[in-house]
């Protein structure tokens, strides 16, 4: 059951990425190019996603528990530490270089562009390194 649910959720998320245009690095890079070929479309992607999630989360979190799990797992940390600045800063640089964030990189994988086939393994290696380093630091 949980396999089918996750497959369906990934499919829906990915269809959203493709329909919105966010799966195309050229569109992402033009969104980030305020002083050049600026394409504001991605503001509508973020706006639509946040709006639906803002309303939907409020409705869902009135429940005692989720449908398929014993309880909700929500982030509880409130502190702003150095990792919360350094991590997103590095992520944004990589996003601005390649035009991919993690979700769109996976939707692009099967389309087989050479750049994607380099990006995805490098991304997974970076994720692995961050987890190992984070574990080592405690």
């Amino acid at each position, binding site marked *: 059951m949980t396999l089918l*649910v996750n497959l369906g959720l990934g499919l829906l998320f990915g269809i959203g990425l493709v329909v919105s*245009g966010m799966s195309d690095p050229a569109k992402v890079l033009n969104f980030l190019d305020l002083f050049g070929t600026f*394409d504001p479309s991605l503001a509508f992607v973020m706006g639509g*996603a946040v709006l639906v999630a803002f309303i939907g989360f409020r409705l869902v979190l009135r429940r005692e528990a989720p449908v398929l799990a014993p309880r909700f797992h929500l982030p509880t940390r*409130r502190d702003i530490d150095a990792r919360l600045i350094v991590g997103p800063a590095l992520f944004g640089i990589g996003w601005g270089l390649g035009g991919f964030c993690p979700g769109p990189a996976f939707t692009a994988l099967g389309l087989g562009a050479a750049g*994607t086939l380099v990006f995805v393994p490098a991304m997974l290696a970076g994720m692995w390194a961050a*987890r190992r380093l984070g574990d080592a630091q405690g």
Partner: protein
Amino acid sequence: MTSFTPLASLIGGMLIGLSAVLMMLLEGRIAGISGIASRLLPPYRDAGLAGRLAFIAGLIAAPFIVAAATGQPVMQTVSADPVLMAAAGLLVGFGSVWGSGCTSGHGVCGLARLSPRSAVATAVFMATGFATVFVVRHVLGN
């Protein structure tokens, strides 16, 4: 140039939001792609690997479903520079895990939950994203 697509982008964004809401309703979890992807690799600390693989399989299948439904191939433009894409991938992978989230976990789910941490993270990655494209296109002139 890419064309401005407000309606398609709004609808696509709402589908992304719907997936995040259903993830919360059914599994009780934040739909954070960097969290899901980073835990495809060991060490494994829970029994959720199969579910995460299924979610990623859904992402990979999505463009083929859209192409089949619309009868149009999914178009995209990806840099073929292997050094640039390797550096970009390492930075995106390391940075998203180091900062506990990416565009989905912080940018969509976190902002929707009015999380101060996610607001900071989103402001930082948007700022460095804008700055990087500015430097690459308008300072270095690529």
